[in-house]
């Protein structure tokens, strides 16, 4: 009996042993920091007297009460930037995947090229780009298309455009990956079955590429709503996003518990948002409705 069981036990344990390093990695770099921040968010005290875990749930009430505006603004900016990324990124991915021919990889490289420049530098260059007398506004004002006092910098528009610019590749790549793998004959089948180019796109290509859009939305919405560089560089004082608040609470005010609880509120809001989005989009019913 035991003779028979021993190898079977080893065989059953093997998969767990194989994934153990991955679990360890996750535990070390995901679970531990989260647990640290979670306990920090429930502490009270200050930098000089030290912090102690007093289950201070009031931190959360204070975080929401004080910073709901910044949290809301972050979500709105993130959502706008994500929509902008879809509107620009989808045609871009479609074009590379279906029309790129032999140069697909070259186009992808072009798309990724800005990523080789530091994120902060890129954002700062947008500042020059969008300046009141800069390349765009200066020219438009020069030919009289814009009034002299028009501005973009230090406005929500500048932040959203900056965010969309910086995170565009995160939208394009997952959509491209899906479109590139798509069997082109499925599109031809739609054309063969009396669908014009537009119908073939809306009934077949678009629904089949939704998983890529879904991945792209997650990969842009989360980092854009948590970003603070764009808001700081392009948004001015009135467009602070929650990322900036967390940063200054941590690094300027040293109010660690407050910073931790804002972080958690943001995380919770994003998780709820993503899950309801997944439920709405990921279910088969939505896909079937699009088949009609």
């Amino acid at each position: 009996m035991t003779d028979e069981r021993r190898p079977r036990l080893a065989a059953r344990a093997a998969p767990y042993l194989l994934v153990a390093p991955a679990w360890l990695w996750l535990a070390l770099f995901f679970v531990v920091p989260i647990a640290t921040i979670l306990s920090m968010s429930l502490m009270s005290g200050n930098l000089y007297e030290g912090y102690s875990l007093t289950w201070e749930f009031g931190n959360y009430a204070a975080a929401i009460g004080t910073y709901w505006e910044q949290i809301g603004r972050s979500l709105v900016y993130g959502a706008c930037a994500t929509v902008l990324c879809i509107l620009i990124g989808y045609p871009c991915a479609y074009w590379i995947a279906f029309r790129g021919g032999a140069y697909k990889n070259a186009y992808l490289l072009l798309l990724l090229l800005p990523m080789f420049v530091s994120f902060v530098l890129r954002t700062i260059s947008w500042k020059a780009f969008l300046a009141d007398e800069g390349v765009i506004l200066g020219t438009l004002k020069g030919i009289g298309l814009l009034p002299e006092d028009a501005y973009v910098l230090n406005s929500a528009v500048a932040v959203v455009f900056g965010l969309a610019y910086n995170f565009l590749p995160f939208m394009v790549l997952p959509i491209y990956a899906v479109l590139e793998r798509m069997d082109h004959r499925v599109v031809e089948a739609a054309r063969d079955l009396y669908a014009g180019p537009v119908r073939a796109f809306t009934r077949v290509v678009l629904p089949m590429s939704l998983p890529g859009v879904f991945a792209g939305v997650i990969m842009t919405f989360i980092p854009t709503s948590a970003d603070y560089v764009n808001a700081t560089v392009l948004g001015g004082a009135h467009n602070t996003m929650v990322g900036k608040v967390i940063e200054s609470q941590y690094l300027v005010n040293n109010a660690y518990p407050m910073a931790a609880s804002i972080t958690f509120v943001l995380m919770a809001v994003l998780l709820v948002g993503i899950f309801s989005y997944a439920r709405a989009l990921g279910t088969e019913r939505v896909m079937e409705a699009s088949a009609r």
Partner: protein
Amino acid sequence: MESMTEPTPVGAAEAPPPSPDVPAIALEGVAKTYRSGREEVRAVSRIDLEIAQGEFFSLLGPSGCGKTTTMRMVAGFEDPTEGTVRLKGADVTRVAPDRRDVNMVFQSYALFPHMTVFDNIAFGLRRKGTPADEIRRRVGEMLELVELSGRERTKPGRMSGGQQQRVALARALVNRPSALLLDEPLGALDLKLRQSMQMELKRIQRDVGITFVYVTHDQGEALTMSDRIAVMNNGSVEQLGGPRQIYERPASRFVAGFIGTSNLLSGSVADASGGLVTFPAGDGGAVCATAEAAVGATVEVTVRPEKIALHTARPDGAGTRSRVPGTVREVVYLGASTHYTVALEGGGPGGGSAAPELTVYTQNAAGTDDGPVRGDRVWLEWSPEHSYVLPA
């Protein structure tokens, strides 16, 4: 009735009543050259074909001979470089695929993975604006025809290859196109399923009476299913005819070699009289063929393996039958029949060339004892009408 927003496709059955002798599909001097950079590939060169209504027509040929390209030009996915494509007489050369009254069954099925079987089959009808209750009825009929009733809510990804194949067929057939184009639709199936689907396809084609254009590189499949076959090679049609004609009277060496196993023999005519020519083959043997040729001319004949009789001794009788001696090189026992490979003796009629080998199929009737074995000397015999002389 079609909705007003979706015009009737070109060549549709509802258009002016077509006379039965207008071909369902006509290709007139159609050619296709693919260009990529400086490279040019002549995929199809000036094909002329007329495919009658209700016909089961096969395009047969080796890989890369242009079958798919020809089919895609009929469906509208490729623009011909030259020539005209007609559907029921109407020129559709520059008409988009969604405006042509033909439907295609793709080799890979190309089912819509995000839709149920029902939605897949209903796709074409919905695009044409067919009322919902009629769609339900016609899709139901189709599912019955392909024996998939009750599976309408299934996604294609959860079906077997054969089932997906039938969904693809139903999705095209439900539109009642004037012609159905099938590009190696059975290519991905195993032999047994393939054979039962061949029967199935033939039955469906008879039942619905729609023109089928069938692409295959499997000669057995083409022979069993088709009314007519176009054998293609290097972008042009080598021979056009019924299965029997193609099999028994190949128009070229290529067709003879491509269809079935064929034995090729050539030599210079030693005797010609009364519509019979004779040339020597093997060591003391002779080949007779019903043909007209001058003495001294070189002729090439093919003999089908099942037409040849195998003897252990020199058969006697009149001199009008082909008799060739040889040595058994290979014996393959297949149950109902046995396949022999026999090497001719004496270096063959070609002189310098290696000794030709002939393949012989014999039926294993009840009571016969074991036939010749490897290394045995045998005589092959067949009647002159089975020596088919290839056109020079």
